[in-house]
């Protein structure tokens, strides 16, 4: 057969070959079909480790307890016991190294997340004691009169 018939075939084979060589360099070794099969598990295995190495910011109360035992015990015996320290004090990260001091949320906006009165009986919100933020001392910060670690007690400052 004449060569002009075969020539396009050689070109196509060449292109396929180049693509295969390119794939060899561009696709990581751990890319393949893993535990969940071809439809759901076709991925780069190393990415699972990447996500596991993601930085933890919120350390939970167990991390705060060792140094701030007094505050921890205050909170535990109050109606606010269920609230995690970091909800108001910000993420612990590696405090006290970084950051040395946490940014504490003292604004009314924090307290009225729960204590703005909404009479929704179908949810737990209806049972929480609340105020109307527009009429209940709108100029004041809540912490001026209420001690957040134990709202049953007077404000400390």
């Amino acid at each position: 057969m004449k060569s002009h018939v075969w020539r396009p075939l050689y070109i196509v084979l060449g292109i396929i070959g180049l693509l295969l060589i390119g794939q060899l360099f561009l696709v990581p070794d751990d890319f393949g079909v893993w535990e969940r099969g071809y439809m759901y598990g076709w991925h780069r295995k190393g990415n699972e480790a990447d996500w596991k190495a993601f930085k933890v910011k919120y350390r939970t109360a167990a991390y705060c307890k060792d140094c701030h035992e007094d505050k921890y015990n205050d909170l535990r015996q109050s109606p606010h016991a269920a609230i995690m320290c970091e909800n108001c004090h910000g993420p612990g990260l590696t405090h006290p190294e970084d950051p040395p001091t946490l940014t504490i949320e003292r604004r009314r906006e924090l307290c009225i997340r729960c204590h703005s009165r909404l009479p929704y009986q179908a949810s737990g919100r209806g049972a929480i004691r609340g105020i109307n933020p527009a009429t209940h001392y709108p100029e004041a910060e809540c912490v001026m009169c209420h001690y957040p670690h134990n709202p049953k007690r007077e404000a400390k400052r």
Partner: protein
Amino acid sequence: MIDRRGFCKKALLIAGGLAIPISALEIFDPKNLLAEKDDQGKVRWAFLVDTYNCVGCGFCVKACKVENEVPLDANVTRTWVERYILTRAGVPYIDSPKGARDGFTGKKISLGEEGVIEIRDEDISKAFFVPKLCNQCDNPPCVQVCPVGATYQTADGVVLVDRDWCIGCGYCIMGCPYGVRFFHPVYHVAEKCNFCYHRITKEMKSACVDACPFGARRIGNLRDPNDPVTKIIMSERVAVLKEEYGTKPQVFYLGLSREVR
């Protein structure tokens, strides 16, 4: 010289050979078959949302955004809380201002571009909050549509997104029936809740679970029969969102109502 008959035969042979995908040969690997039939993993993460306990404080949304580095002011979030208000006339009002990042602090309901509306207390027949997050479906449609294998399911059931591999085509965002996916405003790749994979694999709980003071959000391992969350899912009346889609969601709700979509 090739004749017409020979040419047709060879052409058909080549076309037929090309039509056999390489994956067709892989099906006969017994190891893969077994893995697809009943995977023997010891962990399958599942989530339990108790809507009776949710008060709409939004601490979960704030904690999620900080923990997972989703900018606080961007109008996207991995998890959000919806408020449902049903009037006595049977009209449902649903809102989630900023995904409830700052909680629900007033009676005004956001109607989007149409402004706000306030329903009088005596006109409300029922009102409640529903937290939403990725359902980590057993049949995740978002994974099926990914053309490059950038989103996938791990052996313990969590659907992850490979940020280095995602090309940003957005098919998965369109494919998710629950609308939990979005483009990350910083990395410009698909982003979604992953149950805080970096925490649950370190014996910690998801950030939203730790942040919730009311126990409305809980995470557990379905393969452990002694797990308190698994016990509730197995023994109580739980529901999932959009069951009719066949996605097999693994976020279970207590106290779900007909109006919740």
